[in-house]
């Protein structure tokens, strides 16, 4: 069976985001961009599911990215990790999760995967929506915030990280899974695999090819920096800390 993994190109998680002086957004010029960390976990999980011992019969992994032409680099990274083929969908305007989900729904129609594994959230806009939206559009089950995925004939059982602890739910295939941080530790692509990835197939499409209207519904009026915290004082020893805490009424 086929697994589809949508991957997003975002500001690298190690880079401190800077708000542009004109208040229109975060400065992405000349900064390191990488695959969204949750999507690396999604690609890794798909690769591990190819292992016959995992029982799911996964044979092909297709990765998709929607965005600017440079998202191609992100797809090549996924191919170097071990995905088989890629689809790049370019768009002139920024595509919101609802638009992304609609394009993905069209690709699902074409590709007929039994499983779509997404990240739980993209760390740029922190929306945490796309997987759930795609599941809604397709009428599929959604195993969100996964820390464990077990694939069996016609079924996927997902252990989910929820507020109070862990919850396990089971879904009939086809289904959606979104990854949480503890699902796995993604591999680094080796140099030979990076070379090999260059010749793996990468299809180029546009949002218009799918006949989906991706006009944004939200307008960003402004982007500002949050109120800054400044460093306070350093205390010399525990006694001084105790005095401070008592003065604050934290302890008697």
């Amino acid at each position, binding site marked *: 069976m086929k697994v589809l993994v949508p991957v997003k190109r975002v500001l690298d*998680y190690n880079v*401190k*985001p800077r708000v542009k002086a004109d208040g229109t957004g975060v400065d992405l010029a000349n900064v390191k961009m990488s695959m969204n960390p949750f999507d690396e976990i999604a690609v890794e999980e798909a690769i591990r599911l190819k292992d016959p011992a995992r029982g799911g019969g996964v044979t092909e992994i297709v990765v998709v990215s929607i965005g600017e032409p440079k998202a191609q680099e992100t797809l090549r990274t996924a191919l170097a990790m071990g995905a088989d083929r890629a689809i790049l969908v370019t768009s002139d305007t920024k595509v*919101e*999760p*609802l638009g992304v989900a609609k394009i993905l729904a069209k690709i699902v129609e074409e590709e007929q995967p039994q499983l779509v594994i997404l990240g*739980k*959230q993209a*760390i*740029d*806009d*922190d*929306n*945490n*929506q796309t*997987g*759930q*939206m*795609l*599941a*809604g559009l397709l*009428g599929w*089950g*959604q195993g*969100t*915030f996964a820390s464990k995925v077990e694939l069996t004939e016609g079924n996927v059982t997902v252990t989910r*990280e929820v*507020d*109070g*602890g*862990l*919850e*396990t*739910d*089971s879904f009939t295939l086809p*289904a959606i899974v979104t990854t*949480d*941080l*503890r699902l796995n530790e993604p591999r680094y692509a080796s140099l030979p695999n990076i070379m090999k990835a260059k010749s793996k197939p990468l299809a180029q499409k546009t949002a218009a090819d799918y006949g989906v209207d991706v006009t944004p*519904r*939200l307008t960003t*009026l*402004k*982007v*500002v*920096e*949050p109120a800054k*915290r400044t*460093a*306070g004082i*350093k*205390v010399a020893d*525990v*006694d001084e*800390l*105790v005095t*401070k*805490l008592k003065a604050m009424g*934290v*302890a008697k």
Partner: protein
Amino acid sequence: MKTLVWVEHDGTAVKDATLAAVTAASQLGEVHLLVAGEGVDGVAAAAAKIAGVGKVHVADDAAYAHALAENIAPLVVDLMGHHDAFVAPSTTTGKNVAPRVAALLDVMQISDIMSVESEDTFTRPIYAGNAIATVQTSDAKKVITVRGTAFDKAATEGGSGTIEAVASQGDTGVSTFVNAEIAANTRPELTSAKIIVSGGRALQNGENFHAIIEPLADKLGAGVGASRAAVDAGYVPNDYQVGQTGKIVAPEVYIAVGISGAIQHLAGMKDSKVIVAINKDEDAPIFQVADIGLVGDLFKVVPELTEKL
């Protein structure tokens, strides 16, 4: 505007996160609630007493017992025929259900709002809270999740909502609840605790975490949190994680012990009123946001602190 607020509950009581969502919803207009579950008369009665609440829609059915999004979403979509906005707290359940509802309504969700600027304009954090965006929606109906720490909690008494049963939409059959491991926690919940003591990778193992962090928390009646590194290493369960991808907290006092202060961690706690940091590295980034810092070896200073408090 008429809003429908998702009531987060555990089968017996309304969870605090709901109360913040009610406050946000009340800034949009009339507030109705949705209580879905199995055997939820008690929850419905408690929900009807929340200040400012109009109607409480109650869907009592086995299909709703575990709040599976696949079953809940059609129920909400049906009720949205006569509501203008769906508002859910940014809990794992809210985050699971709301986007599915949004897609079915063909609406772009506004996630994790921090303020209501007007009927169609909201502020929300992006980039782990390193930027705050003001966004305006053009959708006629709105689907919104609410950051709990950004709104006051509505009073749990004083309301006189009317309870109305709604018909079940049944079980879609695509999802089944298997089991849950919800730790019985006797400590204050992180998202509403007044004081939180959090431990990081520096604790080295679960025994140390237990022996060093917990006595201090006990002394202060505090909730216990952790960094991702401490959770990943298995010192404590996943629901302890504070940060961009864990829980967002804003207690009166947050005590970070052996936590470096990565931006993803700061994203979850930098709205705390007072931040106290204990770290042996005087250059640790956590000190840049800490109101009170103590440079020292936690294995020495934390037990001493616990004893002297």
